[in-house]
C-alpha cells in the first residue's frame, strides 16, 4: 500500500430497468471504463427470480481507492423504466442529495420513489434513443450515468467500441451517439470526482468477480481437475474452470448431482491430481458424507461453497454467512478438516490458492466459504501478485525392501501418499477405520491412533500469519471481530471512524477451522470491547467462538440474516453507540 492515500471517496449509481433493457450492460461498461480511467469500483447485480424478464438493476460503486463493499446509499438512480420498482427500491436507498433520472414516457414515478424526497429529473430516454438510428435507451442511460460521475468521454467510447464491435459499425456508431447525448444531458447534474483524489494507475487494474478469482486462485495453486453440478450462486466458478482447465491440459466433468461431483473430486485427487468442486448450501449438504470420507481416507480436495440465504432453498440469489456451522460441523463422527474464508473479492484469489496448498500439504478436505456478495460481485482491483503457494503433496517413492504403510504414524501426522501407478505403493483407501497399512480394523488402538494422526496433522500445521487479517493499533482496546465478506464493510467502517478520531482494531478470520486459540487470543490482547459481526440469523460465528474459548472484554454481537448486507454505516453506529456510552 502507498504510504499516503488520499481520503476515501466514492460515488454510487444504480441503473434499473426491465430484464433485457440493458441495465446490466450499461453498468458493466461504466465499471470497465472506470477501471481503464484508473479508478476502483465494485458492481453487483440485482435481478428478479425470473429466468428472463423481470427487473434488473446494475449497482455500481466507483471509488478512488480499492472498495470492497457496496454503498448504503445511492447518489444517482437512472430508471430506464419503473417495472417492479417496489421490489428493488429497498435495495438502493438514495442519499439525501441523491438524484433520480427517469423517463416521463415510462409512466409516473412510483410513490416509493417520490417519498424519498430526492430531486427527480425527467429526461426522455426513449425519445432520444428513437431519434438515433439503432439507438438504445440503456446507452443513453449509460451516457447520463457516466456524465454524472465524470468518467472521461474517450474511455467510455473505447469500452463501448470494444463491447459493440462484434455487432457491427452501425451499432458502435449508434451507441456512441446515444452516450454523447446522455453525457451532454448530464452536464447540468454532474457530481464529478476531483481528479486529484483519484489514484493514478500504477500496476494496472484487473476486473474480476469473486467466483472467477477463487477459481483462478485454485488453478494457480495447481488444480487440474474439477467436477461440477450447477447451483446458484456458485455456477460461475465452474463455468470459468471448464474452458480454463481444458486450455491448460486439465479437465472438468459435469456430474449428475453433488453426491457425484464430490466423489469424482475424491477419485481424481486419489489419482494424484489436485482437485476441486464448487457448490452452495444445498449442494454442500449433499456432499458432507463424502467430505467425511475424504477426511477419513486422507484425500486432499477443495470444496468452494458460495453461500446464499438458507435454510433449504432459501434465497438463491442473495448472500448470507449461514453455512458456517455445516462447514465446520457437518460431518458425522470426528472428521478434522480445514475451513477458510476469503475476506474480499481480491482475497478470493489468495484464499482459493491457499486452500489448495493447505489441502494438498495436509491431505485433507478443505472448504472455502465464499458467498454471493463476493462471488457475483465484479470488482476493479490492483493486478494481484503471484503468491508462492502451490499444491505440494507428500508422495510415496518406492524403497527397496521397504513395506509401505499408507497411514503410517509420523511426527507431523502427514504420511506419504502413494499415487496409483507407483509400484509397491498399492493400498486401499478406506472410509472404514484402518490400520497404518490401510487394512480395515475395529481395534481401539487403531481407531485412537488414526484419530490422533488426523487431528494432529491439522492442529500442528504452520499456517503462518494468514489465519487472519489483523489491522489497526495494537494498543487500541476496541476490536471488530468478523470473518469472510463482512470484512469489506468492517474495513470501511474502521476507516470512517478513524477520520472521527475513533480507533478500532480489526481481526478478520480467514482460517475458521482448525481454531488457532493462541493466535486468536493474542490478536485480542488488551481488548476491552469486542464487536462481533456476522451475516446469520442465529449467530453461528459468535457461538463458535464462544465454544472455543473465553472471549476477553465486553462483547457486543451484531448479526442478522441476509439478504440485507451489513454495511459500514451500521457498523460505525454500533461502535459509536458504544464509545459514547
Amino acid at each position, binding site marked *: 500500500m502507498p504510504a499516503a492515500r488520499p481520503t476515501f471517496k466514492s460515488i454510487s449509481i444504480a441503473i434499473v430497468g426491465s430484464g433485457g433493457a440493458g441495465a446490466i450492460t450499461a453498468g458493466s461498461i461504466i465499471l*470497465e471504463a472506470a*477501471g*481503464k480511467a484508473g479508478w476502483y469500483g465494485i458492481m453487483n447485480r440485482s435481478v428478479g427470480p425470473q429466468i428472463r424478464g423481470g427487473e434488473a438493476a446494475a449497482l455500481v460503486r466507483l471509488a478512488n481507492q480499492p472498495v470492497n463493499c457496496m454503498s448504503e446509499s445511492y447518489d444517482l438512480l437512472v430508471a430506464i423504466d419503473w417495472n417492479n420498482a417496489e421490489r428493488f427500491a429497498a435495495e438502493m436507498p438514495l442519499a439525501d442529495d441523491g438524484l433520480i433520472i427517469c423517463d416521463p414516457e415510462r409512466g409516473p414515478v412510483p410513490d416509493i420513489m417520490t417519498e424519498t424526497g430526492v430531486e427527480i429529473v425527467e429526461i426522455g430516454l426513449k425519445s432520444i434513443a428513437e431519434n438515433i438510428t439503432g439507438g438504445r435507451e440503456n446507452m443513453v442511460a449509460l451516457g447520463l450515468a457516466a456524465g454524472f460521475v465524470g468518467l472521461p468521454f474517450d474511455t467510455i467510447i473505447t469500452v463501448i467500441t470494444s463491447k459493440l464491435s462484434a455487432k457491427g459499425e452501425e451499432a458502435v456508431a449508434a451507441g456512441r451517439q446515444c452516450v454523447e447525448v446522455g453525457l451532454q444531458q448530464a452536464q447540468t447534474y454532474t457530481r464529478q470526482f476531483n481528479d486529484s483524489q483519484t489514484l493514478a494507475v500504477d500496476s*494496472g*487494474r*484487473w*476486473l*474480476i468477480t469473486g467466483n*472467477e478469482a477463487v477459481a*483462478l486462485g485454485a*488453478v*494457480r495453486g495447481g488444480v*487440474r*481437475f474439477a467436477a461440477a453440478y450447477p447451483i446458484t450462486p456458485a455456477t460461475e466458478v465452474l463455468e470459468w474452470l471448464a474452458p*480454463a482447465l481444458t*486450455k*491448460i*491440459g*486439465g*479437465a*472438468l*466433468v459435469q*456430474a*449428475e*448431482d453433488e*453426491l*457425484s*461431483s464430490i*466423489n*469424482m*473430486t*475424491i*477419485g*481424481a*485427487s*486419489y*489419482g*494424484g*491430481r489436485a*482437485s476441486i468442486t464448487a457448490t452452495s448450501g444445498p449442494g454442500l449438504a449433499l456432499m458432507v*458424507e*463424502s467430505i467425511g*470420507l475424504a477426511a477419513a*481416507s486422507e484425500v486432499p480436495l477443495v470444496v468452494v461453497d458460495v453461500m446464499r440465504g438458507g435454510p433449504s432453498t432459501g434465497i438463491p440469489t442473495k448472500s448470507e454467512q449461514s453455512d458456517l456451522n455445516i462447514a465446520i460441523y457437518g460431518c458425522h463422527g470426528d472428521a478434522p478438516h480445514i475451513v477458510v474464508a476469503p475476506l474480499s473479492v481480491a482475497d478470493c484469489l489468495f484464499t482459493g490458492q491457499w486452500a489448495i496448498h493447505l489441502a494438498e500439504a495436509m491431505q485433507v478436505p478443505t472448504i472455502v466459504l465464499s458467498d454471493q456478495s463476493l462471488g457475483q460481485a465484479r470488482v*476493479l482491483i490492483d493486478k494481484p501478485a503471484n503468491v508462492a503457494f502451490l499444491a505440494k503433496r507428500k508422495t510415496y517413492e518406492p524403497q527397496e525392501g521397504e513395506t509401505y504403510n499408507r497411514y503410517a504414524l509420523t511426527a507431523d501426522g502427514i504420511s506419504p501418499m*502413494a499415487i*496409483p*501407478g*507407483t*509400484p*509397491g*505403493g*498399492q*493400498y*486401499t*483407501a*478406506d472410509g472404514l477405520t484402518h490400520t497404518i497399512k*490401510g*487394512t*480395515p480394523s475395529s481395534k481401539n488402538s487403531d481407531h485412537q491412533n488414526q484419530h490422533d494422526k488426523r487431528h494432529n496433522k491439522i492442529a500442528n500445521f504452520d499456517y503462518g500469519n494468514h489465519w487472519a487479517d489483523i489491522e489497526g493499533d495494537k494498543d487500541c482496546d476496541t476490536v471488530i471481530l468478523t470473518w469472510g465478506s463482512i470484512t469489506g464493510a468492517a474495513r470501511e467502517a474502521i476507516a470512517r471512524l478513524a477520520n472521527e478520531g475513533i480507533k478500532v482494531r480489526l481481526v478478520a478470520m480467514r482460517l475458521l477451522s482448525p481454531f488457532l486459540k493462541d493466535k486468536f487470543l493474542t490478536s485480542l490482547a488488551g481488548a476491552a470491547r469486542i464487536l462481533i459481526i456476522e451475516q446469520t440469523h442465529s449467530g453461528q460465528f459468535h457461538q463458535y467462538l464462544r465454544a472455543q474459548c473465553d472471549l476477553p472484554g465486553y462483547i457486543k454481537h451484531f448479526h442478522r440474516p441476509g439478504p440485507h448486507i451489513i454495511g459500514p454505516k451500521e457498523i460505525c453506529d454500533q461502535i459509536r453507540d458504544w464509545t459514547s456510552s
Partner: protein
Amino acid sequence: MNISQPAPFKAADYKSDITPIWCPGCGDFHVLMSITKALVALGRAPEDIAVVSGIGCSSRIPAYTNCYGFHGVHGRSLALAAGLKVARPDLTVLVMSGDGDGFSIGGNHFMHACRRNVDMTYVVMDNRVYGMTKGQPSPTTEPDWDSALSPGGTGLSPFHPLVIALASGANFVARTFSGDIKGTTNTLIEAVKHPGFSFVQILSPCVTFRPDERQWKGTVHKAVVDETDDPARAARRIMTDDGYNTGILYRGHRKPYATHVCDTFDDPATLEEEFAL
C-alpha cells in the same frame, strides 16, 4: 493400455493377504477368483489397476486385491471411479458393487455412468439381498420375499438392471454366474477390453440370507443366441428371458467419454489475460 503382451503376472500378484469377511460359500469368493484370473490374462501390472467400491459385502473386494483400491461411501463408487479415470486415463479401472449399493442408493449414478461412457468396467455382484445388514430386500429382490423389514415381501416389482443399462446408453452389457468361473473370467476380460463403460451383472448367491440361491447353479444357462449390437433387440431379449441367461448380451460402438486430464500442463498464466484491463 497394452494388453497384447504375454502376461508376466501370476494370480498371487493380484491377491492381498487379507482374509475376506464373507460367509463360507458366498458367491463373492468366486467373483474374486474370476477377477484375479481375468487380471492375469489382461497382464497389466497391479499398480496400474484401480479397484473402486462402495459399501456392502461385495464392496469389500478392493482390499482383497493387490491393486490400488478405494472403499468409499455407500452408492457412490461409479462417481469416484469416473473422477479417477478422467484424471488418470492410463489406469485400468474396475468398479465393484452389489445390488443394494449399485441399484438402490447408487441408482442415479448407474444411469449416468451408462450415459457418460467413461472407459471402465462396472461389476455388480447381485445376490438380491442386503447381506451386510443381515437380510433386507434390495431392488432386485422378488416382491414376495419375506423379511423382518418388509414382512410378507415388498410387493414391488424387481428392478431390471440390464434393461435400465441399455436404456441409459450402456455400451457393453453382460450377465454371468459367479459359480461359472471360466465364463465370468472370459466375460470380465472382454468387458475390460471394451472401450468405454462396460456393465457385468454377476449372479452371486448369498448362501446365508438367500439359501434358495444355491439352486442358481442349476438354473443359469448360457445365452442361446449370439451377442448383438442392436440395443432394441438386446432389450427385447433381456426383457423376455428368465433372468438366468448368461453371456455378453449387448456390445455397441459408442465412443468412450473423451474428456481427460493430460500428463503435462500449460502455464496457467495465460488464463489471467482476460482479467487485465
